[in-house]
Structure formats: structure tokens, C-alpha cells
């Protein structure tokens, strides 16, 4: 507990740029990415076995080879999504990152940043700070993945989780919720990847941490 003023010039100065993404975040991010891609591609194959709507997904975009294989992938990758997702949320809460990174957030700030973004005037100088559109998008995908997992749980075990089944309005409605929540994740994924291509520094930061 020294009261001496710290001489910053004598201290070894860290010249590296500050950490943007802590290691736990990077690990859970990439595991989640793998999990989501496997879930979506195998899920499309399962969908194709009995299409809800008037189209099927192109087979080269699916994995599993047939319904049984796709289901094996789906019910293996679900463990990645769930276990990794719970760890991510716990770390997010424990570090208070959830509150500091994503809030405050208001419809007005989202609208303003969205307009600046389309005019190419949104700054990405400091990757540690999310703009309002990012905040909204990341919160959306977190919530959407929770809905995907819960509706998926109803499809997987509709008899064993009666409360959850009733909450989703029964098996057949849960099936549609699951589909549209998937659509939400895929839409997020597309925008997310496009933004990464536009600002590739974010990809490096998500790999190296800064």
C-alpha cells in the first residue's frame, strides 16, 4: 500500500494494444460458431425429411447425408450449444460484461446508429465498445438462441417437459417457433459475417484477443 507516486516511465510499459475480447469470450464464441453451424446444417436436413413449407434446403448445404445421420449430428451438436451457451452466459454475468457491454440501449440509439451505419459514418475505432446496433444484434441472437434451445427441447421431449410444451403452445407450434428462431440466427449470421468482411480487424481481434 505505497503512497508513493507511481513513476510510469520506469515501469515496463505495455505497448501492445488493449485486449478487446477476453480469452473466455473468444473460446465460447468459436465453440458457439461451430455448434450453430452444425445445428443449422443438420437441422436443414431434418427439415427436408418433412418440409414445413413449400421448399427444401439444398442438400450440399446440409450435413448428415440422410435423416438419421443429420439427427445424430443435431443431437451431438446440441451439447456444444447448451453447455457452451450456459458457460458463456455465466461468465457474462460473473464479469458483469452483460451489463457493461450491452447496456444502456434504447430504440432511439439503435435507430441513430443504424442510420449512421448505412451512411458509412459509424466508427469502429475502438472495438471494445459496441455501438447500439451491435448491442441490439448481439442481445437478439443471445435471446434467439435461448428460444431455439427451449423450443428444440419441446420437439425433442414434448412429453417430458409439459410446462415448456404448454408455454410454446404445443408440439406443432414449437416446431414453427424452432424454424423461425433458426431463421433469426441465420439472418444474424449473414449480417455478422458481412460486417466482419467489412471490418476484418474484428475477426483478428476475435482470434488474437486484440
Amino acid at each position, binding site marked *: 500500500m505505497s503512497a508513493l507516486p507511481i513513476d510510469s516511465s520506469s515501469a515496463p510499459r505495455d505497448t501492445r494494444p488493449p485486449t478487446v475480447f477476453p480469452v473466455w469470450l473468444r473460446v465460447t464464441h468459436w465453440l458457439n460458431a461451430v455448434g450453430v453451424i452444425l445445428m443449422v446444417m443438420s437441422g436443414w436436413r*431434418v427439415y427436408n425429411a418433412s418440409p414445413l413449407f413449400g421448399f427444401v434446403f439444398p442438400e450440399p448445404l446440409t450435413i448428415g447425408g440422410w435423416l438419421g445421420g443429420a*439427427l*445424430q449430428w443435431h443431437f451431438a451438436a446440441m451439447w456444444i450449444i447448451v453447455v457452451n451457451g450456459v458457460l458463456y452466459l455465466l461468465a457474462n454475468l460473473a464479469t458483469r460484461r452483460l451489463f457493461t457491454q450491452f*447496456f444502456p440501449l434504447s430504440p432511439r440509439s439503435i435507430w441513430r446508429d443504424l442510420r449512421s451505419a448505412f451512411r458509412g459514418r459509424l*466508427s469502429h475505432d475502438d472495438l471494445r*465498445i459496441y455501438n*447500439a446496433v451491435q448491442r441490439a444484434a448481439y442481445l437478439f441472437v443471445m435471446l434467439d438462441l435461448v428460444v431455439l434451445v427451449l423450443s428444440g427441447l419441446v420437439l425433442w421431449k414434448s*412429453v417430458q417437459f409439459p410446462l415448456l410444451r404448454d408455454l410454446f403452445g404445443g408440439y406443432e407450434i414449437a*416446431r414453427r417457433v424452432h424454424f423461425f428462431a433458426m431463421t433469426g440466427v441465420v439472418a444474424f449470421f449473414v449480417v455478422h459475417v458481412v460486417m466482419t468482411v467489412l471490418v476484418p480487424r474484428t475477426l483478428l481481434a476475435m482470434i488474437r484477443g486484440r
Partner: protein
Amino acid sequence: MIRSSRRLPPAVASDADLILRDAMKSVDAPTRRRFLERGLTLGGLSLLSGCALDDSESVQAALVSISRFNDRVQAAIFDDKNLAPTYPESMITRPFPFNAYYGVDEVRHVDPSTYKLELSGLVGDKTPWTLDRLNTLPQTSQVTRHICVEGWSAIGKWGGIRFADFLDRIGADKTAKYVGFKCADDYYTSIDMPTALHPQTLLTLTYDGRTLPAEYGFPMKLRMPTKLGYKNPKHIMALFVTNAFPGGYWEDQGYNWFGGS
């Protein structure tokens, strides 16, 4: 400290500037660019061409062992107090869809006059059961949702003997692990004992109040609203109680064995 985006400094560097800057940087760093390119294409390729992932035997083995693990998870989740929802008859799906590993034109027709349900394995009384004798047992019916592994579902009404009562009647060893079924259409499957004893598991002889039609599994279908469609055998000719894992027609090809709902 919470930083509001509203308090951010004015946009000093716009997206356009940054994109340009990034582009310049990557021109300066060919190794980095190559790394990124390779990373993207390798990752993309291995993810897009699912067959490359599937073909590996070790991947197959891993998937199968996870499926076995999921069997155990489902057995742990299974609660015999959880009943599948039942529906009013007005909600029955008409016509109820036909489903099998073959087309409806290949449906097997079992002769009721010579039919006998064969029993084997860990059962006390192995006397085969004729249809007349089965019909003398107390009957019950229920309207439940049939959920197919493909995702679709349909509501139907099945009637028959509570399977737990039947297992009592034949002196089955209820501490055994499995009950297996052999069917007239060469289909076969097996279930766990807790599901066999579930109050909604019925050895059905009727569909919608009339004798089970051939396309729904005459003379007998085991109906379990707690399991997916492929676990519900039709045209049952023989059943056996065992501790040796019996597998099943689809299960041996990769469908999850427990197949719970």
C-alpha cells in the same frame, strides 16, 4: 463503468476510412492475408462438404457413442408420471397418415385365423396368444399425438390392452432391461422396460373404434405416445423380454435407440 454509445466521440474515422485502412494493412501483410484466406476456405470447405466430415469412421463412431449417451440421458429424463397429452376425438387427423419403410401398396396382410402372438425370453407363461384370447382382456383406448422422427405429427385413436397388464399376465420379468418385437413385415424394434410399463403404453388391436386396419398394423401395434413413431411396431408377431440389447430396424442404421418424446 457503463459507456453509452451516445457519449461516444464523434465519428472520427468512418467505415469507409477503416475499410480502406484495413485493406492497405492486408496488402502489407501477405502472410496474414494468406492465413485468413486459408482459414476461411479450409473452414468453409470442411463445413460445406458435409460428406468429408461424415465419411470418417472415427466421426461416425463418435456420433454413435453420443447417441448411446443420449439414450442414457433420455432414460434419466423419462418419468412414468409424465403423461402424453390426450385430445378430443374431434381433433383426430383424418385420414391418419400411413408410414412404414415401404409404400402403402406393400402392406402385409396377416391371416387372423392362424395368427398367434409368440412369447419368448424372460416370461413365465410362453403360451402363444390368439386374437380371440387377446380380445377377452380388458380394453382401453386413448387419443394421442403420434410424433414422427421426420418432424410431422398426427393425432389418432388407438385401443387395446395396457401393456403393463399384459406383461403381468404373462409373468414377464419386469426387472429385465428390454422388450423386443418381431413383426410380419420384417420390421423389428425394442424398448426399455420403464416405457413398457408406462400407463399409456398400449398393445393395440383397434384404430378409431374398429379393428386395426392392415395399413395401421393389423393385427397388433404397440402404441407409445412417449416415443417417436418408429419405436411403435406394427404387425407384431412375437415379443420377447431380455437383458441383451436387441436394437431395431432403423436403430441399427443410426436412428437413436431410445427415441423418446
